[in-house]
Structures are given as C-alpha cells and as structure tokens.
C-alpha cells in the first residue's frame, strides 16, 4: 500500500473531517474526539493543531509558534511540529 503521506514544512494538513477539536470542561484540557478514541492535547500540541487549517503550511505554523513562544529554539519547534503532524496523519487524525 502506498497511501502514506510524508509530511514536511510545505505540507498544509488539517484535522480529518470526522475529528473534532473539543475543550473538555471537566478536566480543563483540549482534546480531539474521534471514533472510539480521544486524544488529549498538551499546550504545545493544541497550539499546533489549532493552527492547521488546511491552508497554512507547517512552515508558517512554525513561524507563528516561534513568535508565540520566544524562549523555544526554532529547531525544536520544527521537530515538534513535523513529528506531531506525521503521527496524526499516520493515524488518520489529520490529512493533507
């Protein structure tokens, strides 16, 4: 099967149509609700996922995050963004 999409800074992923970004009031955290599963997002993951709208490139997401978290090194942010997006695309949580 050749269905796997590889992610780089030019990719413009977004949540798959059946994935819902929802705030969980009871536990005060952000989650993605999916068929029979739910993913808890930490602050960094939420910052990334909430910016992936299918039009913004991951490169642009990295730029925004560098501005939002001035203390974090760019290479680290880049690595976080690519790793998370690839992982979520592999799990059908996001799509390109």
């Amino acid at each position, binding site marked *: *099967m050749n*269905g796997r999409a590889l992610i780089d800074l030019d990719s413009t992923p977004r949540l798959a149509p*059946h994935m819902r970004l929802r705030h969980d009031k*009871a536990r005060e955290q952000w989650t993605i*609700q*999916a*068929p*029979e599963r*739910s993913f808890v997002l930490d602050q960094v993951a939420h910052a990334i996922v909430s910016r992936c709208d299918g039009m913004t490139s991951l490169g642009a997401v990295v730029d925004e995050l560098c501005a939002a978290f001035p203390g974090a090194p760019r290479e680290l942010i880049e690595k976080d963004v690519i790793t998370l997006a690839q992982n979520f695309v592999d799990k*059908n949580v996001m799509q390109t």
Partner: protein
Amino acid sequence: MTSPEPPLALLAELTHRCPLQCPYCSNPLALEKAANEMPTADWLRAIDEAAALGCLQVHFSGGEPTVRRDLEQLIAGATAAGLYTNLITSGVALDSKRLAALVAAGLEHVQLSFQDSDAAIAERIGGYEGAHARKLAAAKSVREAGLPLTANFVVHRQNLHHLTEMLDMAVAMGAHRAEIANVQYYGWALKNRAALMPSRGQLEEMTAMIMAARKRLEGVLVIDYVVPDYYARRPKSCMGGWGRRFLNISPSGKVLPCHAAESITGMAFDNVRQRNLGNIWRDSEAFNRFRGTGWMPEPCRGCDRKELDWGGCRCQAFAITGDAARTDPACGLSEDHDRLVELATDEAIAAADGFIYRRYGAAGDLRT
C-alpha cells in the same frame, strides 16, 4: 474514598430488540422487553447528566439502536450537550433516508458490524438472510454522507480464515478503522463457546496477520484488535477498570459499570430514572464495589500490574468461578487459569460447529 475521576464515555444501550441472532451476542441472557425500555425524555435527561458528569462521547448501541424511532431526537440531544456521537449498528435497517435524518441530527460516526466477508457464512452466523447486501448498502450510504466508518468484525473459529478478506473489504468500503474483535465469552457467547473458540495455534496465526496488516495499511486503515483473553498471560484491562472510564445504561435505565455486569447475580444496580447519574457514578454501591484496587485478593493485591489491568474482568471471574471478587481466570497467576485454558483447548479441538441461536421475542416485536 476520594471522589472518582469522571467517566469518558457513555454506552447507551437503547434496546435489546435486534433482527440478527448472532450466537456471540453480548447482551444478557434475559433480554429486556420493549415495554420496559426507557422513554425518550428519560434518555435525554440521562444524556445531559452524562455530559455534565464529564463524558465526552456517547455510543448508541443495543440490540439494534435504529429500531428506536426516537434515535434522531437522542442524537440531537447528545449533540446539543456537546458529546461526540457514535452509532453502533448492524446496518440492516439503515437506508440512506434514515441515515440522512440521523446525520442532520448531528451523528458523527457509524460503526457497522459484519459477520464475515463471505455473505453465506455471514448470514448463517447472523441468522438473517439478505443481511450482507443490506450492510454493504448501509456502508455505502455512510460514506456518501461523508461520515467516517468503522467496520467491526467479530472473529472466531468459524470465520477467522477470512481475516485478510475482511480487512480488504473494510478498505474497499472506505472504512477509516476496522475492529477485529475475538469473541469475549459472556452471556450468550459463553453458551456457544464450543462452537466459537479458536485453538491457540489459530490465534497466534491471526495475531501475526494483524501485525503484518497494520504495517501494510499504515495511514490507510486503523486496525484495533481484541484477543480472546483465555490464551493471554495477563487479563485484559476490562473497561479500563470498573467504574473508571465508562458507564453503560441498559434499555430499562439500569446504570452498569459494563454491559455484562448484570450477569453477576446478587448485585443491585441503580436506575437513572430514580437517581442522578453523577450520584450513581460517585456513590453507588455497585460502582464502588470493584473500583480501584482496595477490593482485590492476592495475587492481584501485590501485583505490579494491578493499576494496568485493574484486576481484569469481574464478569468473567463470576462466570467461571462463581465469585466476582476472585482473580480473573484469564490471568496466568490465577488458580483457575489452567482449568480455563484446558476447557478452551478441549472445545477448540472437539470443533463442534453447531450454534445455539438466540431469538428476540416474536416477529412484530421490532416496532416501537
């Protein structure tokens, strides 16, 4: 006891009525009559209470949930309460018109059950002629409506040789996820264990195939796999622990820690028509009985996995040993384990393939 964490999901078993007669049905031996089913208003209130309690998802199940004519209203209520809505259905009565109404009400995901990839075998298992084509049509409607689809296959000795075809079928119908679940032996399934139980060799072969398929289909199909725990070394973390993550409401409104809990005779379960759901979750005797680790006997109590598997399955301990507080016999450390495995192995070798079918009431019972 400190206040328990809130539950993640509500399993709403709307009815026990079902047009299929699967020999591994997970509903209790005594099915609830249509006349005892909870009315719409009570379900809507229960759904609101579940959301207020912290549930994030609701699974509408049964029996066959689409036989309830108020399913649209219940989905709309759950959506308004902010819950992620999932319909678990056989699909035989789900035409595109009904589906459109459910989608309009806010339905977000459908899980369709298939009894095999081969129509003749599937229909022998489900006891419903013509079911397979109806299910495939339902799958098509779900995908055309733009909804994500999970294909559920319950596997056992009589269909496990079609595992590859089942996964191919799931991909072909556009499913995002496949659930390959070995039969769990409670209720009606326990009655049919001799006709369903695979041998250890068959199970190992199946597990290897799943591992290979997961690699091959990465990014295409998510595959969830449930093994029959008789052959496991350690028990499954049943429901993620008693009263830890899930709650189940039966057709008549009984609130259960898992759908099989009523099989444990001598336990009393509160009804959501009489008592607030949050109250039941936090304070009822049934939910607190096996919650956490305080109830555990040895060897569970001293086990370093006690907060991983939470003592396995209480219903299985009861079904096999007659004592729900004993160590789950699926665990290799249980005194009852060898007897359990021996039983399963003997039955797999004897290979008696006749089913004892269950039938819901008489024809005509399917109306509300």
